[in-house]
């Protein structure tokens, strides 16, 4: 057994500290950020961005950006992503300033509401323009918050995926798994914050911590490479006697890991094992052996290890991976697919813009950055057909749009029409689509028709519900006073022939 001791650690090189910015968007983002501050995150700068001044004021983050001074006048967005979008565009300069010089930007947002869903994709966009690697942490709303909110969240998620290098998505519903059944509701809500905070901290540590076997940007990227994919993320820490095993088990217990079952299909798995000076080789070995059982034979393991005096007796395992878009993603894209149509608005800006800033940051790690800038694109290739179709669909509406969005930042608009027009020739698919993208169009003038359009849908839903309610109260017969048996939205106590509209007699 080889005892690793402090003497073996490489001298820390302070100059290698990478500027990292963590930006929390919206109420949920701010909460996650506060949690990070409480947990202690000293190697990154925290920025909170929100439309709600009150929430901004109560945040403990050092830097604050108020979104949409004129759009929302310091109030929240009231769950309207359009407003969030407008607000973020209005404050684009401030956001840019806040994100300047960062090499790695984390965006934390709770999707489903107004600010998180509307502003986070814009901020991701701006972050990427600044030439940084952008990793977004998104929390999806609880199922009980309603389908509308879930739809907004899914739409925002798709857009976030467009503009971020990687999106790590937490399902609030799954957070239930990590909260003890008897825990209070505040704990359940805090669970998402804690998980996000833990994830950010562990990635920051992973990159900042001087390692025996170092993990860099490139490793991180290749682990997260599959675009629009489902990120697997796990973090575990333990100081028990069996700490290697416990830490790994804990990491695999993370709701995003599905107990390690999903690892089997992953192409790359990034593993970082960090521990105090007392960490032994055999511990690391047994941990990796255990992990190997969860990982397929084809999987490439990107292994890193670090010894950190401050870890004391603890041992921490960080697992990061992503699943290719085909298999496991089925879950999400199926939902997001209908929402896919609107996202084209963002595609044109993404690509032309991602390229120009690339040469700018030419510092010591520029190889990494090079990869960081370009790797997101090759992986996008398999997805290309989809994108081009979308680009085609989007083609018409930039044309419509060009005339109107005067209030736009010039850089934001200029590049987008040009490439789009070139890519636009086949306008065959235009007709059915134009209204849909309009819903999320940023321009104020468009917002009005969008509202008009969104409303009928809402009304429809309400109407349908009313009908069902009426139905129920009349026809449940014997089960009138008992608790209804509702499966898939149908009240089974109502006679089947009535629900299926079969005429009897």
């Amino acid at each position: 057994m080889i005892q690793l001791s402090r003497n073996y650690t490489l001298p820390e090189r302070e100059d290698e500290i990478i500027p990292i910015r963590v930006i929390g968007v919206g109420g949920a983002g701010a909460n996650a950020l506060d949690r990070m501050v409480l947990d202690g995150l000293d190697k990154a700068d925290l920025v909170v961005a929100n439309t709600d001044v009150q929430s901004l004021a109560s945040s403990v983050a050092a830097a604050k950006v108020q979104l949409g001074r004129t759009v929302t006048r310091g109030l929240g967005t009231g769950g309207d992503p359009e407003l969030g979008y407008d607000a973020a565009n209005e404050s684009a300069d401030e956001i840019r300033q806040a994100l300047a010089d960062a090499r790695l930007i984390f965006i934390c947002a709770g999707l489903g509401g107004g600010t998180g869903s509307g502003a986070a994709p814009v901020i991701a966009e701006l972050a990427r323009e600044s030439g940084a690697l952008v990793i977004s942490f998104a929390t999806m709303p609880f199922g009980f918050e309603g389908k509308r909110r879930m739809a907004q969240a899914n739409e925002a998620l798709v857009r976030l995926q467009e503009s971020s290098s990687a999106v790590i998505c937490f399902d609030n519903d799954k957070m239930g798994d990590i909260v003890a059944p008897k825990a209070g509701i505040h704990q359940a809500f805090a669970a998402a914050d804690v998980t996000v905070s833990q994830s950010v901290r562990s990635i920051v540590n992973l990159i900042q911590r001087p390692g025996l076997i170092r993990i860099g940007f490139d490793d991180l990227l290749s682990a997260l490479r599959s675009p629009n994919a489902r990120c697997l993320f796990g973090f575990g820490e333990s100081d028990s006697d069996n700490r290697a095993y416990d830490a790994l088990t804990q990491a695999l217990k993370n709701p995003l890991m599905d107990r390690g079952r999903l690892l089997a299909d992953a192409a790359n798995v990034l593993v970082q094992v960090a521990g105090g000076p007392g960490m032994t080789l055999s511990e690391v070995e047994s941990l990796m052996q255990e992990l190997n059982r969860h990982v397929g034979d084809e999987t490439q393991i990107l292994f890193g290890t670090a010894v950190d005096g401050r870890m004391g007796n603890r041992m921490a395992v960080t697992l990061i991976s992503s699943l290719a878009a085909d298999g496991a993603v089925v879950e999400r894209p199926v939902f997001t697919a209908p929402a896919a149509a609107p996202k084209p608005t963002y595609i044109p800006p993404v690509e032309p813009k991602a390229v120009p800033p690339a040469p700018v940051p030419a510092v010591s790690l520029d190889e990494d950055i090079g990869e960081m800038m370009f790797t997101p694109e090759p992986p996008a290739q398999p997805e290309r057909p989809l994108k081009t179709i979308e680009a085609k669909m989007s083609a018409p509406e930039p044309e419509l749009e060009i005339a109107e969005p005067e209030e736009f930042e010039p850089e934001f608009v200029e590049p987008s029409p040009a490439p789009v027009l070139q890519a636009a020739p086949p306008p065959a698919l235009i007709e059915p689509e134009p209204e849909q993208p309009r819903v999320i169009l940023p321009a104020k003038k468009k917002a009005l028709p969008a509202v008009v359009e969104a409303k009928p849908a809402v009304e429809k839903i309400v109407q349908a519900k009313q009908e069902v309610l009426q139905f129920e109260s009349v026809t449940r017969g014997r089960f009138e006073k008992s608790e209804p048996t509702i499966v898939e939205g149908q009240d089974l106590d109502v006679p089947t022939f009535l629900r299926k509209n079969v005429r009897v007699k």
Partner: protein
Amino acid sequence: MASSDLMVGLEIGTSKICVVVGEGRPDGTIKILGVGQAPSRGVRKGEIVDFETAMKCVHEAVVDAETKSDVMIRSVYVAISGSHIQSFNNRGAVTLPEDRDEIDEQDIEDVKINAREVSIPAQNAFLHSIIQHYHVDGQDGVLNPVGMLAEKLEADFHIIHGVRTRIQNTIRCVKELPLEVEDVVFSALASAQVVLTPNQKGLGALVIDIGGGTTDYILYVDGAVKQSGCLGVGGDHITNDISMGLRIPMTRAEKLKIDEGSAVLGNCLPGETVQLRDDSGFAGKEIERETLNTIINLRLRETFELLKKKLEEEPFINYVGEGIFITGGCSHLKGIAHLAEEVFELPARVAHAQTMSGLTSAFENPQFSAAIGLIKYAQAVQTDRPRPRRFGRIFGKLFNGMRLS
């Protein structure tokens, strides 16, 4: 009579309450000594909604069983049903300490506890953790790992849980009589004990227990429980549908369903009618047979389709080799097996308790499957429990004897 082996199963159903008194024979068979039953009131969809009334009905049924079997009933096994019951599969794992590499009983307990370390809704309580298979150091399909050498023991469990207060309500209803509650058992699990033979469990079978208020199901593949659950729809719903569709009272509808109803369509002449007679025998309303059957068919078909959908969430239904076994009061309905075959595309039959002796009329009625199953379950548990410690077994027997006689 070896009173120690007396076992009583109590099922508080939506339409009736039945109490089965059975005696376990040393050779493992069961003799039914008596069956008591009483119509149930105060129960809806398998759950008690009127405590006082339900308690009276249980009391009636117990007294009936005591008279018929000539046995004083002190403690019972109670079947639990209701749509709050849910299940899932989970794997537990334990690593053996470094100084020991032989798996012992304690490890089996530990792995069971470990498998339960998942969050179920806070108001829920575990009903059963049923072992499926053990994995010893990655070796799959181990049936009994005690004594094997290993570093790591894993086990797949099927875990059934339900809302604690609702389970407690049922228990309280029995305890206030007062009777001891030995154990509560999910009713489909109980039914499967007597409806299926071990061989059928091994080949893969689905048991659907359609009672008055609930439809309980349990799926066996490779001898292990893979899926189970409960749908809050049963025979009462059919009656309700008929009553509402034909605008006749519930009691008539019930009678009509039992006497004339069929789950399959197209078996009657066009325009064929049924005379609805009132109690005095006067001819009343005429009802078209096809209409009646359509109502029944739609409801049952929907119920089966919902079950199928639930079962298809996991792949196990594809490995059912033996087919579907329909039991419970509602399985008396004509054509029900045929309809199940049509929906599930698997062979289906109506089944009742097997391998019993005693009152044949009792166990040949699918209505009593769950209650008789409780006895079989009790027998399995009682012989299982104290096996490792001989003294414990003797004491256990004495103790049981004192309680029962």
